[in-house]
């Protein structure tokens, strides 16, 4: 059965690596980074246009660039990278052969073809309908076709992942249960299947409508099902980047989960409840009852949010426990102060954790509150929120793990180490700025997806407050900073992958270091004596910020016109 499979043993981690899986991880990661570069460039153009003093692009190119930006980074970059994560978390972490590599290649080709088709169609200029393509806005058929092909390719990737789990179990490549990171990746893959099914249900009829075979698509129906794909696909990201947080904590510190049971239950909450987030987009639409809205927008009484809040403690907690067991025990924060802040994988991962929680997480829950959505819906607050989750959270985490993938999977020494050390900070601070300033502008009412906040050519005059213009200027500057960070990432990664020194067989790269032996935390029986005061303090700060910000927004809501 597995006779033809070739393996090598990783000299740094001791993991057994299937060469076919390795190659697939490489191509998916390379495709991901290419689309990150393209989509990021479009993003910069968008931000420079929304900077009132710069106002770079003409209106038609702005709407085109915004459509391409959303597609290339929110969908293409992230899903390609997630395929790499799935193959890594299954074949590599379980020391198994990858099931059906040919299917995985077919999936990859479909995804690539789909992504290229959609990009070409968007660049032709007749499909500037935004990423969401709300009917009855109509794009060219190729727009939908490309996305469908891409999604089918991704679906194949998910099934290769599931099949690999089965193969590994049957061939007994590991003892006991699958690792937590693999469990998290499985969560992502399960959500992905639901997501892609929803996408197919709505995009196939929409394609037929665009071709003229279907007369009419109801806009509410479209939006509800489209977001069962659109929002759930962001939950794939959450499951994937939380898995990466655990992976980097393990690979950097040898950290063990505080409790396998708790962390796995938290992932299970994602599987059970995250999919109903479509409601977040339907809170101010006609045709829904408040009961429906409240239950769904809260992920069934915030049980999925509970999952994220648990990871928010267990990830830094496991790092703290590992550091303390190594003697970094002074005071509350020696473990954090003496963490390897010059290691870009750790720095990126930790910033991803903090920004995802404080910026993306809190704002998401607040904005998803049924009534509060009234003062935020479709303002720049919305992209402010999801740049906090998807860019500062997911993209930063994916960048961080890439610093480990280059030496360990691509087998190249990392080049430009000084640049790499700075990169997570430049990108992270830039993205945090983008998120916060867009949220600020949104609070002042500024519309998202809008070419001209000065309304220069409108028949009726209207002015946003001057503070909103300041916010958009700061947003533009933050975007430039983030773009510099993005370019640094591409330079380091592409440079290393193509020109970095090739590692000899069995040669250990100089970076990353071998993870220390797993510290003796959370062993059976020792759980009662677990001490993580630093993490407890961080979680307390988070919780206070969350509660205050939540009620401040109810206060804002109470000041608008009474309506019922």
């Amino acid at each position, binding site marked *: 059965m597995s006779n033809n499979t070739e393996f090598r043993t990783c000299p740094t981690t001791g993991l057994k690596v299937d060469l076919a899986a390795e190659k697939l991880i490489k191509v998916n990661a390379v495709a991901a980074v290419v689309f990150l570069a393209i989509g990021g460039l479009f993003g910069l153009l968008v931000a420079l246009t929304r900077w009132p003093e710069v106002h770079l692009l003409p209106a038609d190119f702005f709407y085109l660039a915004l459509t391409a930006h959303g597609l290339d980074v929110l969908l293409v970059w992230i899903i390609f990278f997630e395929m790499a994560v799935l193959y890594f978390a299954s074949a590599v972490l379980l020391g198994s052969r990858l099931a059906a590599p040919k299917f995985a290649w077919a999936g990859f080709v479909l995804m690539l073809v789909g992504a290229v088709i959609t990009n070409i169609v968007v660049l032709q200029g007749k499909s500037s309908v935004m990423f969401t393509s709300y009917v009855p806005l109509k794009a060219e058929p190729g727009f939908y076709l490309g996305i469908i092909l891409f999604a089918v390719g991704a679906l194949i990737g998910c099934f290769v992942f599931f099949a690999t789990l089965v193969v590994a179990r049957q061939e007994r490549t590991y003892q006991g249960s699958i690792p937590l990171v693999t469990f998290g990746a499985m969560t992502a893959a399960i959500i992905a299947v639901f997501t892609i099914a929803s996408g197919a249900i709505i995009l196939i009829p929409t394609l037929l409508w665009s071709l003229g075979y279907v007369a009419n698509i109801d806009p509410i129906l479209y939006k509800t099902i489209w977001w069962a794909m659109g929002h759930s696909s962001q939950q794939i990201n959450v499951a994937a980047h939380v898995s990466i947080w655990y992976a980097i904590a393990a690979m950097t510190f040898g950290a063990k989960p505080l409790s396998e049971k708790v962390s796995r239950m938290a992932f299970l909450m994602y599987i059970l409840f995250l999919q109903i987030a479509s409601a977040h987009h339907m809170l101010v639409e006609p045709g829904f009852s408040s009961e429906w809205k409240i239950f769904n927008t809260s992920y069934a009484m915030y049980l999925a949010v509970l999952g994220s809040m648990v990871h928010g403690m267990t990830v830094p907690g496991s790092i703290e426990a590992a550091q303390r067991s190594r003697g970094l025990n002074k005071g509350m924060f020696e473990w954090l102060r003496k963490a390897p802040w010059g290691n870009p994988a750790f720095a990126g991962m930790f910033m991803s954790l903090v920004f995802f929680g404080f910026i993306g997480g809190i704002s998401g829950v607040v904005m998803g509150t049924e009534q509060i959505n009234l003062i935020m819906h479709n303002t720049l607050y919305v992209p402010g929120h999801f740049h906090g989750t998807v860019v500062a959270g997911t993209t930063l985490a994916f960048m961080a793990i890439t610093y480990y993938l280059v030496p360990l999977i691509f087998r190249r020494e990392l080049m430009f180490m000084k640049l790499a050390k700075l990169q997570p900070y430049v990108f992270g601070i830039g993205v945090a700025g983008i998120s916060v300033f867009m949220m600020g502008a949104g609070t002042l009412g500024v519309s998202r997806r809008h070419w001209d906040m000065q309304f220069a050519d409108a028949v009726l005059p209207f002015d946003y407050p001057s503070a909103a213009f300041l916010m958009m200027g700061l947003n533009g500057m933050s975007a430039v900073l983030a773009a510099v960070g993005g370019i640094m990432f591409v330079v380091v990664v592409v440079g290393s992958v193509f020109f970095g020194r090739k590692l000899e067989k069995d040669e250990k790269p100089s970076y990353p270091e071998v993870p220390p032996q797993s510290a003796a935390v959370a062993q059976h029986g020792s759980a009662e004596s677990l001490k993580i005061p630093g993490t407890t303090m961080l979680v307390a700060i988070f919780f206070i910020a969350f509660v205050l910000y939540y009620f401040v927004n109810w206060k804002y809501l109470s000041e608008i016109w009474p*309506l019922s």
Partner: protein
Amino acid sequence: MAITPPSERIWWKEPIAKIELSWIIIAFTWGLIMFFMMIYWHGAGEQNLSNEAYKIKPERFAEHTQEMIDAYTVRNESGFPVVHPPAGDDIYLTGRLYNWWPILELEKDQTYRLHLSSTDVQHGFSLQPVNINVQVHPGYDLVFTIKPDRAGEYGIVCNEFCGIGHHLMVGKIYVVE
């Protein structure tokens, strides 16, 4: 480690640390508070959507709007009729490529039943500077009761992308004493 199988094979029987358990309880309770806060606001708060909505043909909605314009127009402004309907009335606002039609003039502290719909694609009703944002769909009449509580001039921006003239789509509501 998180990248290796759990060291305890029977990991589901390990005890949970007190600190983790406490956080789970706090976070769960907070979730319940946030959940019931939305329900509480339906009773105690003044800002809720009624969820009253009807399916309607776009032409029919345009007719309703026109009937209101014919009956209550008080002046013209930049080619827009300014309509001053009686307090308590049903009032209609149409979102269309690329304006909000017509301009409404309302009285402070009076209630109105505002009907919102579109005659072409989706639009976003974004009333500024109060920052009230509601999605507007073609074929659906969304109704809610508003009570403007401050006099002044309000802008209506379109905050759902609707086409190449999206950024030109501005409307107006006056609230008078």
